[in-house]
């Protein structure tokens, strides 16, 4: 009675479960591989779930095989069991007699049947199909992007007109000192730290022969082909726009311009803690000076130093000594506090001395650090004596303007004097005539300067002259009152014509000024010299009180001067006067209606027409914009404009797609900021519509 039916059933169950697991296995493997390749953890979760589900179904299928299934299976497989295999399971005690007999028969037959394999057959073909399908999927997943042939286009065109960027990867390696990890820009644009090393890794379809990146400033980066990828590097110091240019392949489908902005490393910011003002004036000597600063930086602070300058002494005896002293900071890398105390006593700081201190701190920018300097801090211990002049920080200069008469004025004055002569006393006449002579002298000297003549008179002690000449030296300032007899040499010396503070002229003796002498051409020089000679004569006569005799010389001098002046003039060709033709029908009728309406004399100011305005007007009016002029202007003013790169990008987009309405609006909005502000135009009242007009007329009736 030892029929191993239970074992048979178990085997069948295992077969069914294994069958299902075998069918699912290729797909699970596929999922696992794709999860591993893409690093997506969500897929791992799905994998686990699918595994569990498969196990569950396998279990369910296995459980579905029960004793009844076994019985049916045995009956179907072995006709020898005579459809009575159910008896094999039944308890012989509870069976009726006939059944027991049959059971006994079966049991007797059982060994003949042998250990029959009743497991369902292994479904090789199904497994094969499943595995093949999974393999195909795997191949599609893995191999598709690298297939050598171009990806089929949706339109079904066999020839692709544009290239495609299959994968793009821009790795940004920030400068080492920043301590930042590499980042990846998949859209090939963005903000990168200054000085970052950029490396591109691009893949195209179809494969081009050469690829280069064209930057907006004209530089190019040629990419090299490496195992199906195109890669290249560049260090970025300034923001820019670039475009990918392919050779041997059609242009990229969206010919977009990529924008790289540079995030600059800011210079450290210094804050003054003590002292609280830049100039500290001590009332009494003190032995020490406490200084405290704080500095902060966006990346990290470098070394800090203090430049101490000691200025000792006063007047021309100032001695300046400088030294630099390193300052250690307290705090973290980005924000530190620096404090020190200067030992004034050791420095020899005394009354009347200044200590000037500048704090300087670097950051860690490489290769050249940013340096920030604080304002100069001054510690001053004023001299007791100089205390009251401490605020006088400037040199007072006493300069009088140069007054002198023109040659023509001298002639007019001389003629007036001659006309007045009968009514004047002899002395008065001489006095006035002499004054005119002084004026003539001043004028002569003035012109003489052009010839490099020495400024020969007017030096006290150098060229002793008469009292009258003293007055002449005093210049027109003294001359204006005309009656200055009580002459004071000191005052005259200090207010000498146009030459106050001219030490060289006062004590030295300059002859020809080479520069002045060579300024004029020989011809002009000759005429000028002749004029000067005439002036000499005129001066002589005037000083002698011979006005009548002086006049011809004066006229001659004026003539010469005019010749000189006119020799440098430019003459234009004469044009005839072109009046509008007279309308005889309207002439002398007094009718003004036909004439042009009177206009105000003002003319409108024209704001400077920068290319931005011109482009703006062209864009709004629909005429052809001058892109070349605008681009050139933009490149020239890149540093001054708020967002030149954005402007470049937008103008480029519109240039490429002339009928892109959105691009046009974007560029207009950007240009807005560059437009000059016009004078306010007048908003007009609207003409009434027909209905309004009718209503109004009805009201009025």
């Amino acid at each position: 009675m030892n029929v191993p039916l239970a074992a048979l059933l178990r085997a069948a169950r295992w077969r069914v479960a294994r069958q299902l697991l075998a069918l699912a296995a290729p797909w699970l493997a596929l999922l696992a591989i794709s999860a591993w390749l893409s690093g997506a953890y969500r897929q791992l979760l799905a994998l686990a779930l699918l595994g569990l589900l498969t196990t569950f179904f396998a279990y369910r299928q296995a459980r579905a095989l029960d004793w009844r299934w076994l019985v049916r299976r045995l009956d179907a497989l072995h006709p020898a069991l005579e459809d009575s295999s159910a008896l094999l399971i039944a308890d012989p005690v509870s069976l009726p007699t006939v059944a027991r007999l049959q059971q006994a028969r079966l049991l007797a037959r059982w060994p003949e049947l042998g250990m029959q394999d009743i497991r369902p057959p292994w479904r090789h073909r199904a497994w094969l199909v499943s595995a093949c399908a999974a393999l195909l999927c795997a191949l599609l997943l893995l191999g598709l992007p690298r297939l050598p042939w171009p990806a089929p286009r949706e339109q079904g065109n066999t020839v692709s007109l544009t290239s495609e960027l299959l994968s793009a990867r821009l790795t940004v390696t920030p400068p080492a000192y920043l301590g930042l990890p590499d980042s990846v820009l998949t859209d090939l644009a963005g903000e990168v730290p200054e000085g970052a090393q950029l490396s591109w890794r691009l893949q195209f379809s179809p494969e081009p022969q050469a690829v280069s990146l064209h930057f907006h400033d004209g530089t190019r980066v040629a990419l090299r082909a490496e195992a199906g990828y195109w890669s290249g590097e560049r260090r970025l110091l300034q923001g820019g726009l670039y475009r990918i240019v392919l050779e041997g392949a059609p242009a990229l489908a969206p010919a977009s311009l990529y924008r790289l902005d540079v995030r600059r490393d800011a210079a450290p910011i210094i804050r003054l803690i003590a002292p609280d003002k830049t100039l500290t004036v001590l009332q009494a000597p003190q032995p020490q000076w406490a200084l405290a600063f704080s500095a902060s930086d966006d990346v990290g602070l470098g070394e800090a130093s203090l430049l101490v300058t000691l200025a000792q002494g006063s007047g021309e005896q100032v001695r300046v000594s400088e030294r630099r002293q390193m300052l250690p900071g307290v705090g973290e890398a980005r924000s530190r506090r620096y404090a020190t105390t200067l030992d004034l006593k050791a420095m020899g700081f005394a009354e009347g001395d200044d200590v000037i201190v500048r704090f300087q701190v670097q950051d860690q920018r490489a290769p050249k650090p940013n340096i920030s300097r604080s304002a100069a801090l001054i510690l001053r211990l004023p001299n007791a004596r100089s205390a009251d002049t401490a605020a006088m920080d400037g040199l007072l200069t006493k300069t009088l303007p140069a007054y002198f008469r023109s040659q023509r004025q001298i002639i007019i004055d001389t003629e007036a004097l001659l006309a007045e002569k009968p009514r004047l006393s002899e002395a008065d006449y001489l006095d006035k005539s002499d004054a005119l002579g002084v004026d003539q002298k001043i004028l002569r000297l003035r012109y003489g300067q052009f010839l490099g003549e020495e400024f020969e008179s007017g030096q006290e002690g150098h060229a002793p002259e008469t009292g009258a000449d003293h007055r002449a030296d005093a210049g027109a300032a003294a001359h204006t009152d005309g009656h200055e007899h009580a002459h004071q040499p000191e005052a005259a010396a200090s207010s000498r014509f146009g030459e106050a503070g001219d030490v060289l002229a006062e004590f030295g003796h300059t002859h020809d000024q080479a520069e002045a002498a060579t300024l004029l051409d020989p011809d002009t020089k000759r005429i000028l010299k002749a004029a000067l000679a005439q002036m000499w004569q005129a001066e002589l006569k005037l000083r002698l009180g011979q006005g009548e005799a002086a006049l011809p010389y004066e006229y001659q001098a004026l003539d010469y001067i005019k010749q000189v002046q006119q020799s440098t003039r430019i003459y234009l060709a004469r044009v005839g006067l072109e009046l509008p033709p007279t309308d005889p029908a309207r002439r002398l009728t007094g009718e003004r209606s036909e004439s042009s309406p009177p206009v105000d004399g003002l003319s409108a100011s024209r704001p400077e027409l920068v290319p931005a305005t011109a482009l703006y007007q062209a864009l709004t009016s629909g005429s052809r914009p001058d892109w070349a002029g605008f681009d050139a202007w933009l490149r020239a003013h890149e540093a001054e404009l708020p967002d030149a790169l954005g402007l470049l990008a937008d103008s480029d987009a519109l240039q490429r797609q002339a009928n892109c309405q959105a691009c046009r609006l974007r560029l207009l909005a950007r240009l807005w900021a560059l437009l000059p502000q016009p004078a306010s135009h007048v908003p007009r009242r609207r003409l009434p519509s027909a209905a309004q007009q009718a209503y109004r007329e009805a009201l009025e009736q």
Partner: protein
Amino acid sequence: MMNHAGLIIALLLAVGVLSTALRSRTFGQRVLTVLAALALYFTLLPPSMTGRGDVLTVLSAGAERVARPSRVSAPQVVLPGVAGELASVPDLATALRQYPAVTALHVVGDGLPARDREWVRRLGLSLTWQAPLPARGVQQAAASAYAVPGSLWRIAGRTAGDALQVELTDPAGAVVARARPDGQGEFALSATLRGEGEFLFGLRLLDADGALVEALMLPVVVRREPPPRLLLLAGGPQPELKFLRRWATDAGLPLASRITLRDELALGELTLTPTELGQSDVLILDERSWASLSEQEQAAIIAAVEQGLGVLLRVTGPLPERVAEQWARLGFTVQAAPLPSALRLGAERAYDPRQLFTRRPITVRSDGAQVLLRSDQGEALALLRGHGQGRIGLWWLTDSYKLAQSGAASHFGALWAETIGALARPAGQARPELPAWAFAGERLTLTDVLPGASVLNPQGQSTALLVEAGQAGYWPRSAGWHQLRQGGESWPFYVQAADAARRLRAAADRAATEALVRPAHPAAPVSVVQQPLARGPFFGIFLALMTALWWLERRGVRAV
């Protein structure tokens, strides 16, 4: 009908119950059968309860911010847009069809949208309203949709919520004006318009921490308009004239002037002839030049005003009696008064609100005049009055040039441009009236539209409009600049995105709902309606009973 149906159902059920109950073996089964039949009956014909059938509670958007009783005896519907609740009806009209006896609405929330307000008005329903506090955001923002280059474009608005700041950004995205709303939440911003074309300014509402609360787009179409021809007469040179002439010339106004220097000597050679006046749009003169005009010239001016000319009378000194008399006949009775002459113009007009200006110390009486310019205290500084087809203005601010002198030339220009624009002969083309705010997916009405007009949407598709009595409706599908095209002209208007400016739209709904509020007449009879109970619970009971019966039956079979 109903009763017949009920009777038939009841009879059928009774027959069914009897036949079943007779075959039932236990008492319990019989009882259950009867109960199940009852439940089925009530499922089919639910019993009614009496309730107030004339009041319908309507939950509109924003109702979630109102504390309301959880149970309501009156019927209640939920309109779309209430957070946290499923809409029970797509719109009010549907609800009103479901409850035909309703004569009054109780609205909870931010109010009814436009499509629903129509029905309240049409059916003459009385309405009570339970409104929440307005949500934080821009409630109102008004700015002219069309403006001229160089003008000062003003935006006035109102916000809800406190500790806010409003910023105006220009089309390039830079902040051009900032304001802090006052106690009522009102704010005013302005910007100078530079170029010509269609532009989108941004209005941003920031909270106390500077975080963005709401951002709106404000469209403006900047267009050149025909400049008015300006005549300027003055009895003597003044700085005001210098700056006025400078502005007018720069702004492209054809200008003719005569500024008397002394007898028989004047700057400019303007003579006032009827032709000259007829060709011009505005004449500016002062009391001295008026006094020097001949009677014919004065009569010519008045005749020209009746034909549409605008005249601005500037008071620059004490008025001679004769001039005062003549001006009184034009509608301005001017009297000297001991008033302080210093004043300020306020932030709207002056770049620096503290800057002092001077006016003539006069009081002006004028019937039906409109104030053209006010000081920051609200005192009039210029008046405007219609005369025939034209307009006459009186101006007694004497030193507006200080604006230009202190660097705010744009404010000076804006002041005079607006003044001259108000006075000048009308010239701008009649413009179709376009909605100030249009939203994608919301119907909008265009007024003063000519037959044959069409609308061009941003995608370049043209839709012909059906114009009826100068009006046309348009249903924009997408946001962006649309163009109304008619008679060879195109008028751009901007359609906002469907979800833009939600607070502003809610505020508009509130204001419109507020206008509809009309409590029911107290003497109106309260209608009581039989409101059927819900069928759901009865069906549930029926199902439970039937399940029990089925189980009992099955157990009986097993037992056998």
